[in-house]
């Protein structure tokens, strides 16, 4: 078990260009499940690879368990990593794949079988030990990769988009398994993903990254309810937060908080919406409309309501209650303190 820390870590691949990772400071808690979330190219994988020791930071320090590990090789960092492609050794059986870290770390041979069987049992792949990776399904490969990572009980567990190669259904069950698994072993885990659902569901805390910069670190609830800037506001949530430029500030509100005016008695923001399109998603409706009177140009705002009876092309009054408004500074796009909003 260990705490991972980065201090002003920067990675510049080509001198003179923008870094892939810029000045990242973060500290995990012991046993925490920390998620790096960001779009592709946001530097999340590069940051993870620097923690793993597969990439050398251009500047800054990486600390594991309070010790600067910049000059240590991956093997000396006592970390385990699951790669996006799983990187199983194709010529070795599942048993030998899982046993490889034990052999490499010179764990006494008589303990191998016990440990491999423990790891395989934990992931439910005990029956596959004699197979080769190519004889396994995607989900089985992913479990072998996880088993190989945990078999030597690492102090830190790094996962690089381990679910992105699975189909949607399998991904949901694998996600639940990984969560359960983390609760059981309690190892500090850093998990990279571009999938906000994974991040929200699994993370104790989420680090939102964009262009190599940390935009926000917080619990799933914090980053969703109180985004630090407009990037976080629009990156998380599907459909994303509505942002409306009122002239002095940018006003943000989640689609689920934009409701027919009758349902929001203490509305702080109220306007007529010309309905453009309505989508029925089973449990909810997504309503797309343009605020009437050219108040926001052609800007489409989105509402998400449990049930509704609206016709495309008609006008309806929608409103947002005061506690659900989030204000952002127009210049910096960062969160601005709450204040009464006037939208002429």
């Amino acid at each position, binding site marked *: 078990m260990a705490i991972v820390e980065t201090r002003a870590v920067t990675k510049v691949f080509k001198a003179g260009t923008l870094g892939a990772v810029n000045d990242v400071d973060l500290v995990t808690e012991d046993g925490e499940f920390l998620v790096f979330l960001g779009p592709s190219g946001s530097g999340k994988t590069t940051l993870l690879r620097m923690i793993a*020791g597969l990439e050398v930071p251009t500047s800054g320090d990486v600390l594991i368990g309070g010790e600067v590990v910049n000059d240590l090789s991956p093997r000396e960092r006592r970390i385990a990593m699951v790669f996006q492609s799983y990187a199983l050794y194709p010529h070795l059986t599942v048993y030998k794949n899982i046993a490889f*870290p034990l052999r*490499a770390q010179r764990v006494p041979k008589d303990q191998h079988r016990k440990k491999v069987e423990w790891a395989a049992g934990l992931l439910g792949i005990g029956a596959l030990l004699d197979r080769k990776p190519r004889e396994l399904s995607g989900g089985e490969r992913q479990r072998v990769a996880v088993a190989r990572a945990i078999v030597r009980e690492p102090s830190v567990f790094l996962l690089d988009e381990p679910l992105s190669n699975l189909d949607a259904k399998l991904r949901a069950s694998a996600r639940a398994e990984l969560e359960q698994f983390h609760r059981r072993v309690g190892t500090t885990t850093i998990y990279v993903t571009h999938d906000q659902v994974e991040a929200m569901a699994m993370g104790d805390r989420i680090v939102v990254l964009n262009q190599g910069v940390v935009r926000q670190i917080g619990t799933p609830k914090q980053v969703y309810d109180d985004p630090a800037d407009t990037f976080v506001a629009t990156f998380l949530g599907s459909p994303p937060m509505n942002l409306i430029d009122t002239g002095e500030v940018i006003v943000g509100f989640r689609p689920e908080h934009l409701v027919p005016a009758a349902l929001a008695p203490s509305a702080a923001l109220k306007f007529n919406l010309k309905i453009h399109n309505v989508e029925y998603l089973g449990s909810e409706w997504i309503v797309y409309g343009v605020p009437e009177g050219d108040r926001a140009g052609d800007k489409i705002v989105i509402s998400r309501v449990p049930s509704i009876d609206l016709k495309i092309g008609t006008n309806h009054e929608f409103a947002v209650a005061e506690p659900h408004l989030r204000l952002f500074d127009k210049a910096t796009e960062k969160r601005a303190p709450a204040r009464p909003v006037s939208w002429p």
Partner: protein
Amino acid sequence: MAVTRRARSSGFGLGIAMILPAVLYVLLLVGVPFGMAFFYAFSDARIGSGGDHFVGFDNFASILDSPSFRTALKNSFIFTIASQLLVLVGSTALALALKDKFRGRGLVRFLIMLPWVAPISLGAIAWKWILDSIYSVINWVLIAVHLVKPFDKPMWLGTPKLAMISVIVVHTWRLLPFSTVIILAGLTALPRDIPEAAAVDGAGFWRTLFEITLPMLRPILNVAMLFGIVFTFTDMIVVYVMTAGGPYDSTQVLPSLAFFTGIQGSDLAAGAAISIFLVPLLVIVAYFMLRVAHRAEVT
């Protein structure tokens, strides 16, 4: 229906026309000489005499009796196995060194390709001078650093053991680029995250090399090695230029012996028998070559 049939038959004709040059080329330049060698091996043909009586296995019986042949057979195996081992180790090391980027990699890769690009005889002649009994630069250097005495310098091509070592080294030098390029291609094709996974799992350089990289490269290594075996078993240029099989047949290999017996010694029948003596063995090697190449393709 008629249209498709005509299209198919004209496509078939086109296919034949396309493959014909290659087939003719192989038949005329490889098949005919090979057939003639077979024919001569069972006859009493000599240069100048048209004698072509069938003599059964007489030629084989007589070459098997000849000490020269037995020496050449043994030498062929020593020459092939030793040079292939050196090539395999050397080219793997070179390919590993040339895989990663460094300043001047392009130049080094070019230099390593040179022995393959240059005409073999030219390279062998250069080596002949380097190993010359009087003008050898190697001896000059060894004398200059007082490792050998001026009046007792090694006769690289003049003593049986050193001559064998010399031809093996030169042949290795010549085959190294080919093998290196094949292995380099194989290395580049390995997924990058597998050695990274090994590093994270705690494997050092040697463990990663012997337990991960080389086993994954095995199909490629097999291809390189089998090609090398065929190239070496059937090649006589290095031996011919550097030692002409000497001293006392100590570097004579089967192809050079076949040439000296059949062409220079004008005993066509015996030469042909020597040259096709290894055909069964090479057919087996070729069979494995095809199988391995096929497997490398599939996985």
